């Protein structure tokens, strides 16, 4: 019997046909990757597996069977048994998917106790254990933190930990590594691999990162416009895609080894005045003995038209640095000088948009703030921005919850572009975008940089992307910049061991290479 059996699944949100006649199966212990452009219905399919469309107003048809449960007709109790117990889900927006009021460890423990009759204390222990497994350092202490005290990547790992805590038969992971740096990502993917091997857990991995898919799944399913475009073993699909769309998708994947056009980048003239300069920035969190620096003496500067890439470990202080640069956080030490004409693209698009305002209004904010009153002009300009980020201009009056994760991120980018700032701090701007959209957005940013002399601080964990867009790169670890220099220097001849480690962790597109690397990593880890 298959673990998942989906036949002719269609999901409709009012007039939007998000999923349209999708069928597939998954055997126990197998792994299926779902890839496809943003908004193609990947998350919607994932939700359907756990019956999460219930009572939301979506109309669902077809049949969905998961671990023997007929999800669409099961009663409440049966469904509760399925959810978490047999099948667990990792949501796409890690930041808003945890209850802001409770400690992370307690939330995991709570979920664990739903399916296991254990004491509170045992559940907490289990929570710490899984947090440790997903690589949260100092898990005992950090399990007592609340979500807002976690970095984006840490929250994502917490969610993965929550899913793993229950030892499900099926793990549905919706973009589980978007906020993770490559080393941690590799670690997580290895972990999933291990669990599959150990427990025979099935995996449905939704991702737009073909590399990630290549590393961790057996089969791959390509979706577009709510329909299945192609399905096959991951090796063959990646090596020789049959469908034109798949080919297009693969072509758009940025490659770490690509020595692209960056040589001809105009670059920020070395002589130009920096638009923004930060000296010796420090930010500490915590109190008393627990005090620790999230950012510890970081100095950076950005010149007009220049892109500074920031890469680094999850939780190394990238977001904190970015927030200090735009002035949303007051540094505990050091100073930021330069333009105040800055914008930020937030790491979590779900929480960066006001759920009660239409996205058009959100994008129009900066325009209105500058005194623009003419409604027509505002709408026209917002429409233009939407088009630039690859969205339909008629979506002006839609609300955030009606968008897919990637679409929301594009809305955020459009909002950041609206006031034509001199500098944008982009915190993982493309990590939730599929590769084609990602390519579009990257070229858009590049264009703007060229045309307007826009300066960028580009925080990302995707080393290939950073290489593609950046002039200079800073590598962060534990609140410090461990290495910085031009792209060529850092990527070509990494000096710091951590940088080397990072580069080694980049997922390979070829599954066989990926497997090789995995065993290498394992040996390394065992040796250590």
């Amino acid at each position, binding site marked *: 019997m298959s673990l998942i059996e989906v036949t002719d699944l269609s999901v409709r949100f*009012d007039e939007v046909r998000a999923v349209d006649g999708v069928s597939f199966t998954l055997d126990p212990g197998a792994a299926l990757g779902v890839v496809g452009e943003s908004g193609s219905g990947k998350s919607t399919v994932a939700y359907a597996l756990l019956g999460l469309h219930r*009572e939301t107003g979506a109309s669902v048809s077809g049949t969905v069977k998961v671990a023997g449960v007929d999800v669409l007709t099961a009663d409440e109790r049966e469904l509760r048994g399925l959810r978490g117990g047999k099948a667990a889900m990792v949501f796409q927006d890690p930041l808003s998917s945890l209850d802001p009021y409770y400690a992370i460890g307690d939330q995991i423990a709570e979920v664990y106790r739903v399916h296991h009759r254990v004491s509170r204390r045992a559940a907490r222990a289990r929570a710490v254990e899984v947090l440790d497994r997903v690589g949260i350092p100092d898990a005992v202490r950090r399990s007592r933190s609340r979500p807002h005290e976690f970095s984006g990547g840490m929250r994502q790992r917490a969610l993965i930990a929550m899913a793993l805590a229950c030892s499900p038969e099926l793990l549905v992971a919706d973009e589980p590594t978007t906020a993770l740096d490559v080393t941690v990502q590799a670690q997580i993917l290895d972990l999933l691999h291990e669990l599959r091997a150990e427990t025979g857990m099935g995996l449905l991995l939704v991702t737009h990162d073909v590399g990630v898919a290549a590393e961790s799944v057996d089969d791959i399913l390509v979706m577009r416009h709510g329909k299945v475009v192609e399905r096959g073993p991951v090796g063959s699909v990646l090596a020789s895609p049959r469908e034109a769309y798949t080919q297009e998708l693969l072509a758009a994947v940025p490659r770490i080894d690509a020595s692209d056009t960056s040589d001809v980048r105009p670059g920020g003239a070395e002589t130009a005045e920096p638009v923004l300069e930060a000296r010796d920035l420090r930010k500490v969190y915590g109190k008393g003995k627990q005090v620790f620096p999230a950012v510890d003496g970081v100095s950076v500067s950005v010149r007009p038209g220049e892109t500074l890439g920031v890469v680094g470990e999850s939780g190394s202080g990238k977001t904190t640095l970015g927030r200090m640069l735009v002035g949303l956080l007051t540094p505990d030490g050091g100073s930021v000088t330069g333009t105040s004409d800055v914008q930020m693209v*937030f790491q979590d698009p779900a929480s960066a948009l006001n759920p*009660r305002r239409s996205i058009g209004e959100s994008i129009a904010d900066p325009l209105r703030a500058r005194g623009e009153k003419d409604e027509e002009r505002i709408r026209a300009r917002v429409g233009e921005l939407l088009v630039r980020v690859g969205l339909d201009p008629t979506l002006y009056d839609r*609300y955030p919850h009606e968008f897919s994760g990637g679409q929301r991120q594009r809305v955020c980018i459009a909002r950041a572009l609206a006031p034509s700032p001199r500098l944008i701090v982009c915190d993982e701007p493309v990590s939730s975008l599929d590769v084609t959209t990602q390519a579009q957005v990257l070229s858009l940013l590049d264009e703007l940089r060229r045309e307007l002399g826009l300066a960028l601080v580009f925080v990302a964990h995707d080393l290939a992307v950073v290489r593609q867009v950046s002039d200079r790169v800073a590598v962060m670890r534990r609140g410090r910049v461990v290495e910085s220099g031009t792209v060529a220097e850092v990527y070509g001849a990494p000096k710091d061991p951590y940088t080397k480690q990072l580069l080694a962790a980049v997922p390979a597109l070829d599954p066989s290479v990926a497997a090789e690397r995995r065993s290498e990593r394992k040996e390394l880890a065992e040796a250590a």
Partner: protein
Amino acid sequence: MTQSLALLGTEAASSSEGPAPGTRSFWRRLRAQKAAMAAGSVIALLVLTALAAPLLTALAGQDPNAYHPEAVDSAAGGVPLGSFGGIGAEHWLGVEPGTGRDLFARIVYGARVSLGVALFATLVQLAIGITLGLAAALGGRWTDQIVSRFTDVNVALPLMVLALALLAIVPQSVPRPVLIALVMGLVGWSGVSKLVRAQALALKHADHVEAARLSGWSTWRIARRELLPSLAAPIITYAALMVPSNISVEAALSFLGVGIKPPTPSWGQMITEADTWYQTAPTYLLIPAGLLFVTVLSLTVFGEGVRLALDPRARTRVLRAGKGSAA
């Protein structure tokens, strides 16, 4: 499993075919909720009644202030003669015990004062409360300290003390209803302000608010554009409850002699006076109390409707009631 989130079993938005994109305005969402619309109509009807009071009483051939000693049994403390508090062709809702004044006329005129004063006072309270609450939450530590202490002073100063003072200062010529509504407004805003402050503090550091800050909005506009929509739900819920409490306060002020000038009737005042008559002339208590209840109920249901209509996410939630969910 079918659950209705809408208050009192609204089978709201039963059509699974939503309005066209881009035009799904607030009004559309509101209109989709039957109970809210019904409640809205009741409120409109009450307001109309109040406005048309002279017309209606003329129709009934009654004057709200005319005494009818013949309609009551003076020896028995003034109980209305006839059954059900003297309800009949002459007096549609019976008469007031003691004086024999026509209840229909008094109810209709009372609506003017009660609804007018309570609604206006609520608006004043909301305006002050929201402004100060937002200022406290967003304005930095000192502003917060000052506003919060100011609120404390306001809370600690009993209405009675203030009302007496104002009565002494303000000349009799100032229209009473306006004055009373203002006094109530100036005194009763602290709840709103507290509520808004608490909620705004919780939201203040949300990413979307930070984003708005970066877009160059002034704090004030951020408050209005980013925070208010999220605060709308608790505020509306609370405001719907402020109206009855304002009606009671107006009655209490009349009781203290600083309210509406007699013989002008008001509901609150009627209920206040009727409470001992519940056994011997129950209609005297039940009619104004019932109307007040209907008003409160309508406001609450309507408020709930507005709240849902203001929440774009709620559209799908409202649909829960519907047949749309095949899952």
